[in-house]
């Protein structure tokens, strides 16, 4: 087991190297450089050149890449070209926001998606199946930007039931001091239930927006995995032996259908961590996604490189955990 984990962690190194090379190359292939974006419409060519020199952007690309990798080995992500804030510090501040949002979105997706998939499979070709699968098809197809704004207009502007943005209300912002950066956890640690409710109310709309696509995908995967399992011989045998329908679904079918579902959940969770860009932008959520978005627009190379490396590592770790969880759900799998 440990050997397997260490082996997997070591295999992370070439993956990371590949990712950094890819991101570095792609970023530099995009026309335009940060000096121009930063200095704007009014800058003269001389000023741009002087600024490029100051930022080290006029050095040959391989040298810039080697410098970047050299720093990365020392866990130094560098600083933002635009703001001068160290990347590591920014990640440290922002990732709890993204993680909290992603976990909430995933929770919504799993809690609603898995039962929906099971119900659709059990009542295959019924009106319920058609309804759930049509709903999931719409869910997959909905543009996140549109859905986010729609939810804001309905729940925040028209009905004024939920706040439209941010992690915490304005009134609370002056008094609330984060401990871990995970606001839900922080409010519980402070035994402040009012604050907990405040944080939850801010989480609902962005989590719903972010969770819609994974919800739909999980529901569809669950349905197909369950259908496949339910058609197996041992299920027929169980039925013949007189095992009740509920027991068949939960104990026998679901457990065996769980591997593709857990794989999908893992992949979707990894995607959420990196793919919350639009949701975070619409809901002014101070996470990694909105930071990357600003970094890309501003050609802030260190921000994009550092952000992508962070997200990649998170993605790989989540996938490692998913792989390890296979053994948890299926005793036949051993990592020896």
């Amino acid at each position, binding site marked *: *087991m*440990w050997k397997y984990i260490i082996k997997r962690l070591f295999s992370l190194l070439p993956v990371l190297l590949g990712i950094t090379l890819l991101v570095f190359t792609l970023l530099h292939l*995009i*026309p*335009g*450089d*940060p000096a121009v*974006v*930063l200095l*704007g*419409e*009014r*800058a*003269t*060519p001389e000023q*741009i050149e*002087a600024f490029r020199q100051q*930022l080290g952007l006029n050095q040959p690309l391989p040298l810039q890449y080697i410098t970047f990798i050299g720093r990365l080995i020392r866990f130094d992500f560098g600083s933002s*070209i*635009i*703001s*001068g*804030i160290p990347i590591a*510090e*920014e990640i*440290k*501040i922002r*990732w*709890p*926001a993204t993680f909290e949002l992603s976990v909430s979105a995933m929770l919504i997706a799993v809690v609603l998606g898995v039962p929906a998939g099971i119900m659709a499979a059990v009542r295959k070709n019924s009106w319920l199946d058609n309804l759930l699968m049509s709903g999931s098809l719409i869910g997959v197809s909905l543009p996140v930007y549109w859905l986010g*704004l729609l939810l804001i207009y309905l729940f*925040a*502007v028209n009905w*004024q039931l939920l706040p*439209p*943005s*941010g*992690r915490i209300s*304005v009134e609370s*912002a*002056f*008094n609330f001091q*984060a401990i*871990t*950066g*995970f606001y839900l*956890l922080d409010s519980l640690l402070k035994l402040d239930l009012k604050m907990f409710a405040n944080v939850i109310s801010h989480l609902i709309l962005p989590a719903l927006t972010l969770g819609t696509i994974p919800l739909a995908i999980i529901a569809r995967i669950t349905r197909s995995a369950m259908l496949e399992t339910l058609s197996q011989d041992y299920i027929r045998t169980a039925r013949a032996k007189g095992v009740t329908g509920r027991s068949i679904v939960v104990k026998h079918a679901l457990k065996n259908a769980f591997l593709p579902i857990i794989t999908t959940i893992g992949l979707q969770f990894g995607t959420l961590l990196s793919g919350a860009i639009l949701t975070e*932008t619409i809901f*002014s*959520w*101070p*996470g990694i996604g909105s930071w990357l*978005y*600003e970094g890309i627009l501003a*050609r802030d190379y260190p921000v994009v490189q550092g952000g992508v490396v962070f997200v990649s590592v998170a993605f790989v770790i989540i996938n490692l*955990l998913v792989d*390890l*969880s296979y*053994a948890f759900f299926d005793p036949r799998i*051993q990592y020896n």
Partner: protein
Amino acid sequence: MKLPKWRFAFLAIICTFTIIITNCSKPANNINTTNPPPSQQGVLVYGSGGPPVNLEPGNILDGNSLIVQQQIYNRLVEFKPGTTELQPGLANSWSVSKDGKTWTFKLRPGVKFHDGTDFNAEAVKFNVERWWDAKNPNGYRNAGKSYEIWQQLFGGFKGQPNSLLQNIVLVDNSTVQFVLKQPFAAFPSAIASGYFGIASPTAIKKAGANYGTPAAIAVGTGPFIFKEWRTGDRILLEKNPNYWRSGLPKTNQLVIRFITDPAARLAQLRAGQIDFTVDLAPDQNKEIEQDSNLVAVPRPSLNVGYLALNPSYKPLSDVRVRQAIAHAINKQQIVQAFWGNLGTNDAHFTAPSLNWSQSANIKPYEYNSDKAKQLLAQAGYPNGFDLELWYMPVSRPYFPTPKPIAEAFAADLNAVGIRVKLNTKDWAAYLEDRRNPPGFQAYMLGWTADYGDPDNFYYPHFGPGGTTDLGNWKNDKVIQLLNQARQTGEQSARGKLYAQVDEILHQETVRLPIVHSQPLLAKRKNIEGWVPSPLGSENFEAVEKK
């Protein structure tokens, strides 16, 4: 029951991971947070178009940073609310020597920075030297700070041949002199621009290169005291109880939320999450009007959106062709369609508020396709020609929806036989490539002034080095008039010089003015005292929630 080894290992990893994520993420940006405010009354929330880059004066150009800086810092000279007229700021009065080269500023006594240190002539010198002197140890240029705006507005840094400033002299504790190499009549206006807030030298020395970042602090003399910057989310400011303008600010706490998306900004205003906001698109005006809780607030225009016609390309090298384009585009109708009552078209490159510098003798090129065809025929292009027209990939206050506007240009130009090919590219590349010879054939761009003087419109666009995007097109008379105006003290005399520039540029039509737009802002009905500045940012000392 004994857990199998691998299950134990898996659970151990999950637990370790959980412990790591809950312990390793203590935010580092929560500073100055030990004293919660006494009251939650009077919290004013401003919806900014994005996060600031930095709160360090003199080192940034973007509007999102400047609006926050306006709340924290004062400048020597400031602008009267809603205008470009000067009023005393940290300087009580100012005067210029007879030769127009030495500007003397008398400083306001008894003013203190938020950290309790004194504001005085030493503090002014300290701030100016770090902007101007590239070798100043407090400039932290090795940490990536550039202070480019100083170079742009005042010619260059210390020791450079084009530097307008020759010396800064401490006359006494409350008097400071700027000695210039040549007269510059707009100097007080330029030093009043939002970039040059005076910061506490003690705070800068203490924070070093981190000054003005979320990890540090920002200390000025302004109406609000910096409390905390939550990265990507908001900035919290509190009332300066010792503010030198008595009775101000009118609100106890000011929160600046960063909301990048205009639709999300308006939605939050409607939901009552923010009290006032900026940078909305003209087409959002209807939505504002339909909501009885909101009021649209147009910002006075101090900008120009123009179509650049590059004379280094063959058909455009003929002035008649450029004038034909000016006649072919129905500017009035386009402005009406895309800006409604938030835009005007006139014949001038400078904004309408600078009418003292405009010529009364010129009128906009009327929309007349027959005349356009006639001019094209005279120039030898009776069947028109192919034109590559570049439109911006981003929205700006002067061109909020560049692509449809460019399509409207193309439709009008096609009607007179000019076959337009529309192009665009990434914003950074757009800005860069327009200046790479030979530049674009025709392209859209604009300008929002840094200070309310015609010099800030004309010099960067038609002065030395300002026309690289037009194939280095040059008009000696224009440059001579611009330099002469810089050296002339009397506004009426300067006005006459600029009027001549106006007439020449109208005739030449290398940058065809399309619009002077009023950027759309909005507030909730119960917000009073907000007077937007034509310069793009103002302080909120008089804003209050009723």
